């Protein structure tokens, strides 16, 4: 088994210890000398390493989350004193027909935010890493990551022009004689969701590529050399070496992008606002409308909590699967 197998597994199961774990747990066995007190001290020191991260995180991320959970039990407009309503807010969201559409859309966005960027990221990373040292590689790397550094507000504005009736996309279609295919993409009940989805792909692919590239650096070049000596071409090299060895980065990329898909908000808010009709409504948009429309922070909180739980489960499943996969 490779180290890669264990990278994203949060912690190993007994009997399937990685080299990492063997090292950590094995020290005590190799050196029986340090007594219990020594181990306790080491564990206390280990906690000290975690403290700087845990402190701000607990105070300014987890406590507000719990506060949100608490407020989800209230009827609250965000300004006046809340009144306790128990689980009514949760009842309201499960019976909301918009939520079903929103959940469905968020699921569909995984295709655009996760599947497509990971494929594109893998392909571009494979090509770029093979070309390492050649002229232009840096340029490619730099350019492909660019969308990631732009504020989403700006991304949304950019793409509104691309998708507009007289926008870049329709101009391009007309230029190649496909004028009949043009549409007002963001206003189409059929195309709006794929259109915003592709913006997500555009943004996220660069991040995936960088993740995979930093993974390929870990791969010993000798493995490639050996494969090449065996007559492996670029495609075989890609499928037989690069992809399997990038499993940890793969799990990281999948987690991050699935989270991005399920909690998407900014992009959709700026481009379609959830429209036309309800065709691009996602949970984030519903939360925003409820919380900032001035009406129902309590209901928004309930929805935020449900979304947090759903995303947590998704992350959990991804991590579980990435450990179990062969």
């Amino acid at each position, binding site marked *: 088994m490779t180290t890669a197998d264990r990278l994203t*597994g949060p912690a190993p199961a007994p009997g399937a210890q990685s080299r990492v774990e063997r090292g950590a747990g094995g020290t005590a066995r190799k050196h029986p000398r340090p007594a219990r007190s020594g181990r306790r001290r080491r564990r206390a020191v280990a906690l000290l390493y975690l403290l700087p991260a845990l402190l701000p995180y607990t105070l300014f991320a987890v406590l507000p989350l719990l*506060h949100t959970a608490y407020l989800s039990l209230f009827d609250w407009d965000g300004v006046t004193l809340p009144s306790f309503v128990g689980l009514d807010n949760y009842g309201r969201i499960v019976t909301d027909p918009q939520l079903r559409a929103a959940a469905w859309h968020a699921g569909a966005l995984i295709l655009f935010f996760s599947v497509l960027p990971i494929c594109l990221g893998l392909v571009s990373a494979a090509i770029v890493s093979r070309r390492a040292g050649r002229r232009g590689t840096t340029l490619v790397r730099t350019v492909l990551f660019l969308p990631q550094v732009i504020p989403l507000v700006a991304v949304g504005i950019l793409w509104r022009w691309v998708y507009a009736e007289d926008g870049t996309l329709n101009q391009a279609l007309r230029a190649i004689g496909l004028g009949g295919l043009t549409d007002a993409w963001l206003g189409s009940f059929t195309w709006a969701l794929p259109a915003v989805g592709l913006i997500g792909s555009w943004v996220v692919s660069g991040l995936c590529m960088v993740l995979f590239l930093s993974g390929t650096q870990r791969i010993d070049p000798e493995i490639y050399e050996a494969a090449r000596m065996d007559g492996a071409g670029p495609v075989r090299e890609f499928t037989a070496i690069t992809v399997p060895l990038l499993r940890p980065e793969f799990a990281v990329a999948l987690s991050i992008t699935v989270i991005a898909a399920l909690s998407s908000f900014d992009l959709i808010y700026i481009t379609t606002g959830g429209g036309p009709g309800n065709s691009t409504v996602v949970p984030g948009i519903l939360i925003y409308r409820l919380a900032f429309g001035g009406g129902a922070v309590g209901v928004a909180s309930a929805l935020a909590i449900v979304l947090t739980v759903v995303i947590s489960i998704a992350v959990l499943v991804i991590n579980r699967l990435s450990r179990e996969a062969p």
Partner: protein
Amino acid sequence: MSPSPSSLSRRTFLTATGAVGAAALTACSDLTPGASSSEKSSSGPVSTAIPADEKITLVVADADDTTMTPGLIAAFREKHPNITVKRNYTGWDDYLKSINTTMSADSAPDIAQFTSGMQNLVPGRLLLKVGEYGKAYGWAEKFPGLDQITLTPDGKTVGTGDLYGVGAGLSFEGVYYNKAKAQKLGLTVPPATLDELEALFAKAKAAGETALVAGNLDGGLNHAFNVLLSAYLTPKDREAWAYGHQSATIVLPEAEKAAETLKRWVDKGYVTPKVNGVSDNDATAAFAKGEGVFRISGNWAAAAVAEGLGEGAGYFNMPPVTSGGKVRTTGAGVYYCVSSKSKNAAAVAAFLDFTAGAEAAAITAKAGFMAPDAGAMPSQSGLLGDVQQGWQTVVKDAGLQPFIQNSSSPTMGDTLTTQLQLLAGGKATAGKFLAGLQTDFENYHK
């Protein structure tokens, strides 16, 4: 996989969350934030005197992207050298998101532009009741449209209750048209009735033109729908619903007629094709570039239209249903309200009063708004002059009605956009469309 103490199992996950949860809930004391009822929100006895020898600083928060608010501030400062006014401008979208938290901060601005969604500040006692100042200054005579900023104590109903501010610059909707094209196509304007307007649309369409330029990506068809409702619905029914009166309804035959008219315009191809994919701003831009023949929008668009079409830009008021009927249209404006945390209420009231004066009228008119003192507005020529003339008729006929999405419920803006897109996209009938609006209304006013 067998469970193990260190693996990320669901159980672990839940225990971790639960433990922290319990600890935090007992530790945190300020769990139900919100303004307490002890905060004052009435001003008590007032006078129109402004302390003249005291240095006063006022903060104004607004989302007015015209020259009006900065112009009024500058003129007011010149008149009162001891008063410094700091302006906190935020773009419209960002303003809507942040104004409620801004107003609940200790550092709340003294004056804020009142927008839809701020109604909750009333029961939160974060807005100052300015009724006493209104009496002292005689605002009822000076400002038209004060009912739009008069709210009940729960903030849910407009038009009755206490006064919370004044409208310094008013806006209203009407019909712009391309004079050159109207002439070429032989269209007689202004039409005397709605039917005549529709006949003009048909003629323009038959000549291959886009009759009505519109954009509904962000719900811009609400301009057309609002004015159609103004024409068809009785003012009483319109206000009851738009102002959020208990048990009001929009599921009425007249409203259905308005919705069907709009749907017919879309179905017959009078409206910009693929209207759901065009933003309202782009529609104005396209019309100003010479596309299409008519455009229903507000006086805020006048400057852009005039710049684009020049002498070829024309305007008329939305025609009534029957010839000779009163002109009714939809409008709002820039309303200023006051923070209950303001320490300089007297100076704030002086500023509010200043916006009604003749000096302010010139500034307001120049920024493209209708001044409260319509007579004091300097007369303008061309398109702006036509718009101004239209305003005189609206005021004479008392035809200014509130937008249906501003005060009926906090979420109505989004709901109206969604429903208009469904209507224009052929996904909803007029009846279903109105039912969708009514559902939102009843969710809030239950």
